[in-house]
């Protein structure tokens, strides 16, 4: 009296198969669940029992043992309800032998199936194992949009049983949902003035350069940063799925949004919230939710030093390792970092109209918080000034769509070129600045990188002198003012 079906789990950003085994024995009535279930999984027992009863099917009054294998992998979430129920019913011969299928779904007490957070993961496993997937009707289209997945929607436990009796493939599979090509609601056309900062944002988008904006409060730093996803190229199919799964692992659904994610954690966020953690099941943090998108840290200098240090690994390797006793989990965390900061604690140092309230010592201390390795990560450090109302040009600013077009073409140029870490500093401007001590070697490297991107934006194969010059002109610095 044994049956098994396939379900799924997320480990890090990785989809894994989980086998739901059910055994109905001859001993007295009991319901045991093993395989490291967390509380949400353990509660499946009650939901399954009620849902089975509501569906007019007899729940075996014997010893029911359910194991989620591999038994040493911690499980979480409510999506095991449906596979557990089907497994038990098959083991007690209430339904015919289970055809191999990937099954996910939460059960309501009336027997209906609710969409859970594993919709995308089920699609990935379905495609990988060439198995049909049974998921809640509401999330079937999302699951089906994973390339290669064959998906059938079920509305209730009874419906699922019926499908198994008639053969899963008796009906047509669900058609994939088109990935939404939604535009960012924030458009660059709304940003007035800030011509230099806009240009910097475009270059950052084209070259995936990390960007630091600094300037007084109200200079539009956040406004600019939040418009970056709108000018980035949309996510590809596999990227959309990858990002969606990471979000699912954090218990969030973003569907199949092709707009690159934008995450803006507050500076009071905990380390675990930033890089991932949590007790029991390890949940990805903001750096992973921003994977393939933008991580925006406003008030960068207000973030505790230790928190900023944890960003160094993902910035270097594009992934983050969350270590737990006995195990560690890797999450992808390949994000573009945009940060904003005031120039001093009061924010007005260098403002044309308002005096700075800070004592010089306080200002120096504030600035020193951002020294060293983190600052080195920013290829672009750009000052944004407050725009005076009377200086605002009434002409419409360029909309995101136009900028996005240039970024896309620059990106494809960049992709078509062999990436080399080599940069030569033979350009007379770079050489001159190096010799005059206006540029450090590291600074020269940044100028060369940014210059390459500017050439891409200019549709130029070679990096010409004016490209380097523009990069030099844009080279901000955070030291004094």
């Amino acid at each position, binding site marked *: 009296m044994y049956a098994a079906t396939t379900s799924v789990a997320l480990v890090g950003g990785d989809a894994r198969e989980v086998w739901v085994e059910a055994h109905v024995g001859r001993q007295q009535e009991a319901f045991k669940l093993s395989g490291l279930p967390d509380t949400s999984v353990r509660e499946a027992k009650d939901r399954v029992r009620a849902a089975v009863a509501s569906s007019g099917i007899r729940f075996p009054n014997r010893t029911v043992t359910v194991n989620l294998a591999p038994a040493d992998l911690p499980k979480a979430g409510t999506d095991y309800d449906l596979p557990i129920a089907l497994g038990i019913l098959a083991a007690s011969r209430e339904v015919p032998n289970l055809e191999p299928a990937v099954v996910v779904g939460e059960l309501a007490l009336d027997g209906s199936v609710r969409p859970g957070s594993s919709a995308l993961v089920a699609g990935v496993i379905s495609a990988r194992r060439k198995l049909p997937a049974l998921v809640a009707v509401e999330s079937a289209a999302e699951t089906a949009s994973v390339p290669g997945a064959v998906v059938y929607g079920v509305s209730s436990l009874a419906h699922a049983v019926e499908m198994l009796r008639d053969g899963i493939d008796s009906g047509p599979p669900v058609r994939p949902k088109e990935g939404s090509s939604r535009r960012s609601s924030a458009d660059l056309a709304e940003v007035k*003035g*800030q*011509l*230099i*900062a*806009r*240009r910097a944002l475009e270059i950052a988008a084209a070259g995936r350069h990390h960007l630091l904006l600094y*300037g007084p409060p109200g200079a539009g730093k956040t406004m600019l940063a939040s418009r970056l996803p709108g000018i980035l190229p949309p996510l590809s199919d596999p990227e959309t799925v990858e990002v969606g799964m990471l979000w699912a692992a954090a218990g969030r659904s973003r569907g199949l949004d092709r707009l690159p994610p934008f995450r803006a954690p507050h500076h009071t966020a905990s380390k675990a919230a930033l890089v991932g953690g949590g007790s029991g099941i390890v949940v990805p943090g903001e750096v992973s939710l921003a994977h393939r998108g933008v991580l925006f840290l406003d008030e960068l200098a207000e973030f505790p030093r230790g928190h900023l240090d944890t960003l160094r690994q993902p910035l270097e390797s594009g992934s983050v390792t969350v270590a737990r006793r006995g195990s560690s989990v890797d999450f992808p965390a390949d994000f573009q970092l945009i940060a904003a900061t005031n*120039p001093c604690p009061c924010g007005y140092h*260098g*403002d*044309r*109209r*308002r*005096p*700075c*309230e800070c004592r*010089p010592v306080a200002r120096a201390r504030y600035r020193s918080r951002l020294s060293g390795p983190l600052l080195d990560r920013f290829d672009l450090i750009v*000052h*944004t*000034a407050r725009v005076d109302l009377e*200086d605002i040009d009434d002409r419409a600013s360029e909309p995101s769509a136009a900028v996005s077009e240039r970024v896309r073409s620059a990106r494809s140029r960049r992709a078509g070129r062999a990436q080399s870490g080599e940069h030569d500093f033979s350009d*007379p*401007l770079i050489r*001159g*600045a190096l010799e005059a001590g*206006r540029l450090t070697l590291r600074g020269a490297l940044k100028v060369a990188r940014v210059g390459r991107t*500017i050439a891409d934006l200019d549709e130029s194969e070679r990096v010409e002198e*004016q490209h*380097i*010059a*523009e*990069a*030099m*002109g*844009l080279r*901000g*610095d*955070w*030291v*004094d*003012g």
Partner: protein
Amino acid sequence: MAEHRLVTPHSSEYPVGLGDLEDPPPIYVSGHLTDATAVAVVGTRRCTRYGSDLARSFGKALGRSGWTTVSGLARGIDAAGHTGTLAAGGHAVAVLGCGIDVCYPAENRDLHQGILESVGALISEYPPGTRPDRWRFPARNRLIAAMSSAVVVVEAGEKGGALITARLAAEIGRPVLVVPGDVDRPASTGCNRLLRDGAFPVLGTDDLLEELELLIGPPPTKGTDASGSDVPDGGIGIEELPSLWECTPSEALVRLAQMEGEGLIRRSGDRILPAI
């Protein structure tokens, strides 16, 4: 510490203007005093960048014209004025409220040193080693007022040393020139009040030079108009370049880098300044 000497009111080196004080004190001097006509540039320590840009521009213009710039070496306007004068290779005299070997405030160390290394001078009525006590600073302002032939106030709040200097100057018959400011901006309240009380308004660097010529006579050396660079004397923010030069941001950045490469401009944080 550089050498210093005590200069008494009977010495030929003693600044003539100080004789107008009721009690001309002997002063400690480090550096060079000249008999060039002096102009004080003073203002609040908590200035805006607008104020410090203007003060720097004034200091530079005075330096170029051969006038001595007198100030108190406080942070803010005082420091900016002297920075401009030094940049122009002019003569800067700082009147300290502490011993001339005491560098206060500490962040002006470079300026302190810069004046000593230039043709300028540090002076104080207090012996070397005197700590910077609060009460000494207003007293030092009477020296600033007296040794200058005119006093320029760039930004001044409701109260503060700059206003004291201006009043003392007016009392002994020195013209007071003041930069007008927004009526609702605290950093300009004192300035506007001085204007209401009859001070001369200053409407820019060129205007300052013209007015000084009328009030205290022609400058020792006719200033060469060195504003050949395309950046205003007081400096400009990088964001303002495209509209100043009427070009695209890319073109502005390219031109900026080229000018920097040719040594025509220099940067200070996000500010673009003419190089001198």
